[in-house]
């Protein structure tokens, strides 16, 4: 199971990297978002993907799931969500003010 998951994560990283290397700002943001999902899956996978019950008293299961990666994941998702939202807003504002969403054109320093 972990092996399949690793392949999925690898694909997500590949797609994300490809998108980040493109020139349009929106694609770059989508790329960071996809890499973020890959990272989240990676955290989950590194905790071990075993079948088991909830780690609570009263559940007399033989094997228990590790709750910590899920807690980490939740925090990471929230942070990723917030930064992506901020990034989207900023890039929209930049597009309105600068009139371009091509990072190649964002390079020049002389237009002030």
């Amino acid at each position, binding site marked *: 199971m972990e092996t399949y998951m690793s392949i999925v994560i690898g694909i997500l990283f590949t797609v994300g990297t490809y998108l980040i290397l493109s020139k349009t700002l929106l694609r770059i943001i989508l790329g960071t978002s996809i890499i973020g999902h890959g990272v989240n899956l990676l*955290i989950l996978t*590194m905790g071990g993907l075993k079948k088991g019950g909830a780690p609570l008293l009263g559940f007399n299961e033989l094997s228990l799931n590790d709750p*910590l990666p899920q807690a980490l994941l939740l925090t990471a998702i929230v942070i990723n969500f917030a930064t992506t939202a*901020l990034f989207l807003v900023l890039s929209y504002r930049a597009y309105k003010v600068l009139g371009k969403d091509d990072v190649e054109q964002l390079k020049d320093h002389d237009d002030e």
Partner: protein
Amino acid sequence: MMNNNLIILPIIIPIISGIVMIFFRNYIKVHRFISILATVLIGLIAILLLEQIRATGIQILYLGGWEAPFGITLVADMLSALLVLVTAVVTFCCLWYAFFSIDEQREKHYFYPLTSFLTAGVNGSFLTGDIFNMFVCFEVMLVASYVLIALGGTKIQLRESIKYILINMISSFLFLIAVAYLYGMLGTLNLAHLSVRVAEVGQGGLMTAVAFLLLIVFCLKAALFLFFWLPGPYSAPPTAIAALFGALLTKVGIYAIIRVFSLVFYHQPGVTHLVLGILAAVSMVLGAMGAVAYWDIKSIITYNVVVGVGFVLAGFAAFSETGMTGSIYYLIHDMIVKALLFLLGGTIIYLTGTGKLKDMSGLIRLQPHLGWMFFIAALSVSGIPPLSGFVGKIFITEGTFQSGYFWLGAIGLITSLMVLYSVIKVFMNVFWGYTDIKEVTENKTIKGLLMPIGVLTFITIGLGLGAELMHEYVDLAVAVLLDSSIYIDAVLRDNLIGQGV
């Protein structure tokens, strides 16, 4: 020893005061009062913590009563407490400067709450004893800094903020990947517990690979070698914000490197610390070249930030008592003097209306105080005795020589000369020469701006003259860095896990 609730205060005071300020959006005076009050409080708490640590050793707080390694632990050792204190001092001066320099629009759009949140993130990163919590504190700090860079929405700010956010998002993902690998391999995220586990299983190739992944992340944050992103974003926002960034943000990355590579990954100094030394040398050389080559005040100062980062980590890479003592002295000096340089540079640009060195001259006739304070800052940043940069530089150079890194020490000394040239170049061009400045400059008053600059100048002189007084504190900080068992014993105590059971 009990939980010490003081440790949470430097994190929670700025968060609460930031939230309170948001409710008083149109009352700028309330904002100013609360933010200054919070900063002074944090400073006092840091002093209290320093005394407690000196008297009874490392202070611990188990959040929610969950003992390490199960819950999140806050750890205040000497290094953390010193850095929290310096952060408070720098924030205080930057806020003071902002009172006279930030425009009303920015003030009304939550400049002070954002600064508070930034401080919360910085203090949190210094005080946490858990690597995932460190990631969270980094994010708190970074999100505040994203907004601070973009605040105002001028073209250059928007353009630079996009690059800044992208580079930091990617480094955050790398941080998470490294954390995931660490958890997968070692099954813990508590720094002290990680150290125990790494010592048990040995720092093999795989472990060192993860260490290098973390190093890449921290290098990006600290602008060590991977500093290509730094000059743009740091010159875009107003002076007070740029000074905060230059003084605090990169230092958090440096702290993370020092903490992780002295506590957890210290078993292979021949590999990790050699690489650190090489990276430090390269960033010193490249930073100094940038500082020498540019003829623009902001660029010269931002490249000096890079040189400072290289210098601190050169001492750390030597991994000896002398080298680390130098690193800590220099880290404290660097935070103060970089804030000072940014504030001075910003004031000069405000007065003359340009950042180009060749377009200004003879400012000393109009602003003698500013001129001489710049001169002191220039000498301090290049390490001339008796100012604060000298103490750190001499220990770092001695440490690198003792550990056999002669090339590193030599590069440090050569780049110091280049730094001296770059700042004296600014001094000569701006302050010397024929006073040929428009009337606009003569009418501008900078009385308010000079006060925080004066305070920082006094501190840099005081740190140089009073280095002996600080020695006791710095020694305690170095002891923890050299002997990780002090940290581990303090955090894990008589816990069964701490004894390797």
